[in-house]
């Protein structure tokens, strides 16, 4: 069941969003509403446009037509760095597949940079918040190390803490565990599970179907730039309606 939402209550609202990449139609008439507190997991084959979709939400990708509003800020097609985009980026956190920690800064400085430079927090306040977040993701003892000295799982948890330090209203996850060794995937998923429990609005692109089934309020299946099917994990995994969904699930759930 897709949650029924009124426009006013949704934190992300996409209408007829289209993105072309040359002759490639990457996103095709996407309509999407996400309500506060909702955990949405986007699945689909590689190249289906799922990463592009969430990267549109914080303006890392431009789109050519349609409307997109995030927490009331309207992003226009082909909009360069507008004021709305800046506001959206301060309110929306993102965790990347490749972590993208700043290698020249210590763990703690990675986390305090944006709160100090963007939000204008005093160093003491930023440090206190950073320590609290590191504690929360279970790596308080690594604060003074550099990213290169940490394992992949630890780096991704720092990246999560770094995004949370901005006190975002919405968190985007772009295949957060795809670059991790298998034994480290669990610790990152645990941290995300905690976050979901606390009520954070999350949009997650992942291949971890077990995790998706467990934490998602809604699963969206993307096929060739279109939302082919969406619904609760129960509905989508147990009784997929769309042929593409069925064949995709058959392939990924086999092992």
């Amino acid at each position, binding site marked *: 069941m897709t949650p029924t939402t009124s426009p006013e209550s949704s934190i992300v609202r996409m209408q007829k969003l289209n993105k072309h990449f040359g002759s490639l139609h990457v996103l095709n008439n996407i309509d999407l509403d996400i309500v506060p507190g909702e955990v949405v997991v986007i699945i689909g084959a590689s190249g289906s446009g799922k990463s592009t979709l969430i990267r549109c939400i914080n303006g890392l990708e431009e789109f050519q037509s349609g409307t997109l509003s995030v927490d009331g800020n309207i992003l226009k097609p082909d909009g360069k760095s507008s004021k709305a985009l800046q506001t959206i980026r301060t309110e929306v956190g993102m965790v*990347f597949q490749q972590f993208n920690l700043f*290698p020249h800064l210590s763990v703690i400085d990675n986390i305090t*940079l944006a709160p100090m430079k*963007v939000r204008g927090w005093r160093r003491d306040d930023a440090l206190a918040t950073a320590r609290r977040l590191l504690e929360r993701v279970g790596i308080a003892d690594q604060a003074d190390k550099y990213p*290169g000295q940490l394992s992949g799982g630890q780096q991704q948890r720092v990246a999560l803490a770094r995004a949370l330090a901005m006190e975002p209203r919405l968190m985007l996850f772009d295949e957060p565990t795809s670059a991790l060794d298998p034994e480290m995937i669990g610790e990152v998923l645990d941290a995300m599970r905690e976050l979901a429990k606390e009520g954070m609005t999350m949009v997650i692109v992942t291949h971890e179907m077990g995790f998706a089934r467990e934490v998602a309020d809604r699963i969206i299946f993307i096929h060739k730039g279109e939302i082919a099917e969406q619904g609760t994990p129960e509905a989508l995994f147990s009784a997929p309606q769309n042929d593409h969904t069925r064949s995709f699930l058959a392939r990924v759930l086999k092992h």
Partner: protein
Amino acid sequence: MDFDFQFDWSAAFASIPYLLPGIPWTLLISFGGLAFGFFIGIFFGLLRISPIRWLRWLAVCYIEIFRGTPILVQVLFIFYGLPQLLGSPINALVAGIAAIAVNSGAYISEIVRGGVQSIERGQREASLSLGLSRVQAFRYVIWPQAFRRMIPPLGNQGIISIKDTSLFSVIGVGELVRQGQIYIAATFTALEVYFMVALMYLVITWTLSILLRQLERRGIAGQ
């Protein structure tokens, strides 16, 4: 065959007091020129990767012109040519510094461009996703990392420019080679004096190499 000529160490040592006054000039032209060249290089290096096409073209023109012509011709043009245009002579020291500045600036532009472009896209994306402005992303995230990668090629360019100043003996500025030539004209000890001149360049460039290596090591230790 019988050589009646021998390397005369006393003549070599005797030349030292006459050569030493050339060192400050060599250093002044080199580092003065490089200091300007560094800022020119940052300026054009960033223009070179600007999203605006005609700014990129401007940078490409500058780089091609000053990288594609000999520095000797550049300094002759500045010292002998420009005064005809300006109507007043140009001080030889100023001409030397200007030549090093525009010449090293062209190479440093490419070093800056390469350094900045070598930083993974994800660094910029992560910065922007945190709400940093493009300028902040550059200043706090991209540039510090790019600069670290630029140190070895910048050191290279520094050493090349120091040696290039030797060409400026032709405009009569009293740098190392010029001092040597004057001394040789009076004593006819070319072997010994050019040997000492070479040795002095080596001391300068070697010192710079050691300093750079330490700077690099500190940079790596910081990660």
